[in-house]
């Protein structure tokens, strides 16, 4: 018991210890009196541990450098630390190493289950087919099955054409 718990937000000795079970995962947060008040933890009308965890994992080290920058919209890692929101849809790909580990704490799972918009689904089907054909093509070439390789190449060409006809969002 030598080292008492420190506040996750400011580092002062923690007096409020909070455990919340979100989707069968235990999340623990230790806070000092002031931070607990400020974050509304003691507020009986409720608070969201998910929000708190998000902010806690954002706040700690002030951005040393700007870090990664989104090519699409110019949003930086420092911007994300400051706002807690992203700049554009492409940021999720740009910052996947940062956001990836945080999702598990925030949500029930890390992969989308649920509604898929119809048009996006079409793009996804084409994309998956393309990936699969590429693998088949590589294998065919390796094992010198040139007829198969030619067939794959033709089909890749067809799928690519269909793919280009779609709004190019899924790349």
């Amino acid at each position, binding site marked *: 018991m030598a080292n008492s718990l420190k506040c996750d937000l400011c580092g002062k000795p923690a007096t409020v210890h909070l455990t*919340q*079970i*979100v*989707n069968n995962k235990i999340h623990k947060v230790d806070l000092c009196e002031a931070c607990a008040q400020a974050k*509304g933890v003691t507020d*009986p*009308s*409720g*608070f*969201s*541990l*998910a*929000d708190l965890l*998000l902010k806690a994992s954002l706040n700690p080290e002030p951005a040393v450098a700007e870090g990664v920058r989104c090519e*699409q*919209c110019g*949003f930086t890692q420092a*911007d994300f630390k400051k*706002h*807690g*929101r*992203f*700049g*554009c*849809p*492409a940021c*999720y790909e740009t910052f996947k190493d940062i*956001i990836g580990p*945080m*999702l598990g704490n*925030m*949500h*029930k*799972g*890390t*992969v*989308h*289950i*649920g*509604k*898929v*918009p*119809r*048009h*996006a689904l079409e793009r*996804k089907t084409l*994309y998956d087919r393309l990936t699969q054909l590429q693998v088949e093509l590589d294998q065919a070439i390796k094992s010198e099955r040139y007829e198969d390789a030619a067939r794959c190449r033709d089909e890749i060409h067809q799928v690519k054409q269909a793919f280009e006809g779609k*709004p190019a*969002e*899924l790349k």
Partner: protein
Amino acid sequence: MKIAPLFDVQSELTDAAAGKCAIVLTTRVRLARNLANQPFPGWAKEAQRSAMLAESIGVVAGLPQMKKGLSLTVEELTDLEKQILVERHLISRELSTAKHGAGVVISRDQSTAVMINEEDHLRIQVLRYGFQLKKVWNAINALDSEIEERLNYAFSPTLGYLTACPTNLGTGMRASAMMHLPALVISSQMEKVVRAVNQLGMAVRGLFGEGSDASGSIFQISNQTTLGESEEEIIKRLSSVLNTIIEHELNARAKLLEADGSKLFDKIGRAFGILQNGRLLTSAEVMNLLSLIRLGIDLGVFPESRRPLIDRLFIEAQPGHIQYAARGTFESGQRDQLRAQLLRTEFNKFEPPNFNVGGKN
């Protein structure tokens, strides 16, 4: 006034017939949606926001569900109008503070509203009277699919609908119910309930969402997480939590009546007296008094047919609505007078309480 048509027709929120389950006032589902290849509203430049608004407001207004609806941009609304829209749950506080390049499309019956350039490009909401989660989900699901026919959504096969804030990622769905829980508040059990509900991954908020207090014993219960679970699963889980809360509220009411019915009836009777005779009433006080009258209706002290009036007054007693009704802007002291006047008028038409109900629930 741009929003005048809102008052000409019956609204889902304020005039619907009494639902079967009186404890759940309204059910709401909202979906966060964004357009592919465009910066999120909070990061977009002014010109980009304006272009996005111009493009999508027409698309949304053209939907069959929005026939004869209202399309409004923040630039053309006065502060009072924005306040009224917030009080009617048609726009968020965040949208009401936006300076430019944001707007909302509201259906004629006000059950459907699509905010444009709030935190996300689109915030679609469907709201209905009573406990109707599945029906609301079906309605919003259809609306969302129709919008997707016309606009290109940002979607990732692995992360789902991409949202400005990662806490909305996945389904982008927040399903919620507005619950009237006076007995749990009176018997000081609410804190316990909030803690239990939080542990089940659901959030509890006040009537006006994040950061608002729980005046009138009205609480908003909603799902906290959006990724890794389908919409149907989230709704099923929320439904079971809501049913458990309803059960606890009914038990708490039974216990209050059993322990000392006259104490509870005294509170209801006094509330009625103040509403009939008060000369200065703040909105927080009125919320609490109306809450007691609503409980009285549930217990048979007042006729069932009065419940929709109470639910309407919950909204019409808010500061924006008081000023709109009086056609002017007034300081809070004057508003309290106007509010008391409104309630005196309504409650002098009200049936007197009948306390010989033998603890009927």
